[in-house]
């Protein structure tokens, strides 16, 4: 992995100017962009509460976990904050197969002066620990809880890390930051939606200083996000269409919360739907392809009801149509 030339933040940015949040806070940042700094997405919209939580992580060296349903843009949120601060950022997707060796490092055979030698190669955690890097554990709750104990120590602010394989104690770089995103809050797959989510150890959950919750946004915000992503819908008619789309998405979310649906529309689905509308030129066809086909067949009539409310159009699955077609 290419090394990072930066060492310390060398400027301060005003939160009000950069993130549009009404506060006089100043946040340290780098002037130079490293290769590890994510690209800036100019249309990204920051959620004030979550942004403040993430900024606290960067400014005060807090361990921040962002929790929320899928498609709310948790990881992107952290990345975009890092991108604005020019803070190098490494994102790891955890899964059930990540082992201790992947995280800590392992002995590997390498060629040195034409000789095969066995040498210890650092894993991602010690590597990041010694550099000004924001390390993001994506899908933190997918990691096996027994493996995740590797990071137990570094979750504490001044926690040093002992590399037992090398008899070395690593002191974290003062600008090392640690973030995580998760769908659940460590209680496992309660609603059946997040298969593979593990129950986490609460001694570890407890060590995260800040747990920010990023849930679905108010309708106006969401409309703005979709319009920013899909500029083709910026006209008056397009805006009305997107409003209706967001209204359907909200109904599916409430339906999910009430247990009527087992699938829900995330903001990502709405964006996909809007994009597919551009391709197919028909919101009904695009809706079918972007969301309806993901639903269980038995739940489609309910989705058709939601759709009728917001669009005044009948889907083929609607009870109205089925009842009429069926011979008496």
């Amino acid at each position, binding site marked *: 992995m290419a090394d990072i030339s930066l060492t310390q933040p060398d400027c301060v940015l005003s939160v009000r100017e950069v993130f549009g949040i009404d506060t006089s806070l100043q946040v340290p940042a780098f002037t130079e962009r490293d290769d590890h700094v994510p690209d800036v997405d100019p249309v990204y919209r920051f959620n004030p509460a979550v942004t403040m939580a993430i900024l606290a992580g960067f400014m005060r060296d807090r361990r921040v976990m962002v929790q929320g349903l899928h498609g709310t843009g948790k990881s992107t949120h952290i990345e975009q904050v890092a991108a604005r601060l020019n803070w190098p950022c490494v994102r790891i997707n955890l899964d059930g197969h990540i082992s201790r060796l992947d995280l800590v490092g392992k002995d590997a055979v390498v060629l040195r002066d034409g000789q095969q030698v066995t040498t210890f190669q650092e894993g991602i955690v010690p590597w990041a620990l010694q550099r000004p890097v924001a390390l993001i554990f994506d899908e933190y709750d997918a990691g096996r809880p027994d493996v995740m104990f590797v990071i137990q120590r570094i979750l504490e602010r001044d926690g040093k890390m002992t590399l037992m394989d090398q008899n070395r104690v690593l002191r974290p770089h003062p600008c090392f930051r640690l973030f995580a995103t998760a769908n659940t809050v460590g209680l496992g797959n309660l609603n059946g939606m997040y298969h593979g989510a593990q129950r986490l150890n609460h001694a570890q959950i407890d060590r995260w200083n800040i747990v920010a919750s990023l849930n679905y946004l108010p309708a106006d915000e969401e409309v703005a996000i979709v319009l920013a992503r899909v500029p083709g819908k910026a006209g008056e008619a397009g805006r*009305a269409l997107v*409003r*209706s789309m967001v*209204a359907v998405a909200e*109904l*599916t979310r*409430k*339906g999910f*919360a*009430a*247990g*009527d649906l087992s699938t829900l529309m995330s903001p990502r689905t709405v964006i996909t739907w809007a994009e597919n509308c551009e391709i197919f030129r028909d919101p009904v066809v695009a809706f079918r392809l972007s969301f309806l086909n993901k639903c269980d067949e*038995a*739940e489609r*009539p*309910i989705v058709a*009801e*939601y*759709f*009728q*409310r*917001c*669009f*005044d*159009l009948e889907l083929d699955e609607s*009870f*109205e149509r089925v*009842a009429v077609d069926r011979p008496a």
Partner: protein
Amino acid sequence: MSTAQATARRQQRVEELCAASIRALCGEADLHFRARRLHRGQRALPLFGPHLQPSFEDDDFGSFRGAADAIALRLTHSEGVLHRSLCPPDPVRRWVFESLEQFRVEALAPSDWPGLARNLRHRFEQWSCTFHRSALIDSASGLLLYTVAQVARARVTGQPVLEATEGLIEVTRGGIAATLGTALAGLRHEREDQAAYARHALAIAGHVAAMLRAVEDDAAFDGAIDDDTAAHDRGFSLLFDFDAVVDDDLPTATPGTSRVLEAAVGAYRVFTTAHDVEVKAATRVRAALLAEYREALDRRIVEQGLNVARLARQLRVLLAVPTRDGWDDDQETGCIDGRRLSQLVVSPAERRLFRTERQRPVANCVVGFLIDCSGSMKQHIAAVTVLVDVFVRALEEAGVASELLGFTTGAWNGGQAARDWRRAGRPPHPGRLNEVCHLVFKDADTSWRRARRDIAALMKADLFREGIDGEAVEWACARLAARDEARRLLIVVSDGCPMDTATGLANDAHYLDQHLREVLRRQEQTGEVEIYGVGVGLDLSAFYSRSRALDLAEPPGNKACFEIVEMIAGRGRR
């Protein structure tokens, strides 16, 4: 019967969809229809407006949608406590006040929901047309209420009055304009503010009540207020009683409350248990007859092409949980198997050195079927037997234990228990007064193969007499609760309310109904056993919080099985 069953099915489907819409629109999870009335949890909500009770015979699905949307808006935008505190007590003023409040929330429908707006308008127009066609419109009072409703709604929502009746209401409209004009104008201004709006609404309600007293000449109309059911028989009702239980021609189990049981503070009594029995049903049927029944049953199952394997698959998905179950050795990927490392040294080409964890679906679950063996079930029993036999077989394939139980009484009209009661000098409030007979067709430890013949005993309809549901459910739950399985389900198949003539006569008509409801509530609270009600051509939602109406008039096919699976999966109504 078939059409009645089909109607019951349709009704349930419509209610499921409407309830789902209401839940999504107002974001409250515990709203559902029971016995045609919207309930929040266990409590029935009042009827919010005269036009919010479409009828299943005359109104289309659009009307139900409109009513559902209107209720959802009412729940979202109207403060219930404030509304109740302002609500006038007498029926006419209350009718006007409720209607006006409903129009207010309908006017608040968000503009970017075109479908919802159309549903609301459609429902109100349908109601207006029905009102218009009814005899009530011919009376001066009826016309007055109709006009007030039309004019007020047009004012509040800004939509035009129904065109078809514009001429009809012209004169009355002119007549009330002077008295109600100011208040009507206030309605539209203050529609965002419930309390301010209510002042105008109460003023209108007061004026309308006064005007009605002035034209009090109408026997037909007075009758409608006094006796709403009479008006209902004529096909249209103004629904003055907003808290009444909905009574309809549709097959809905409508339980009443028992005064006797209420007076005894819920202490359900049994006069004597001396004659109660619990028997293996097969012992009551000749072996030769059992074999014959079994043969007929098998023939039916084959004829109907029921897919047991598919049902078993569905049930496994539903009831089984993936569980760690040891390791699979000899894998090419996974974790290294330490025991195989020596093999790597000996033959470096060997790649199957890994092992993976094995996950197996294990169903730690028992399902009990409790069949109502009352006389009226005789006509359905063949179909029910086919269904439960297939289920028992599929459950076994899915690794789920199952019980098949039934309940009836030992005799008609109380039998020996009633005789004992008469001999004891007919003491008052004797409680349950019959010989309860609990039948075991298959217990959880017997396999389907061994119980094949015993299950066929269900076909012996001569055993069927009366039904005492509450005690039977208690008994079945106790049997299931004694099992080790973590999840216990009880599916009660019934075609009506509890029925026992002697108990009904000696206590009162709803004695057993109420006991059943109490038992179900108790069991739901403890949560040891999940209870589901399967109504044979009947909506059992008044008793069971999770229920389905099945249409068994035609032979049960895969569809009926699937519906029961759906019910267990908890889709739709809860």
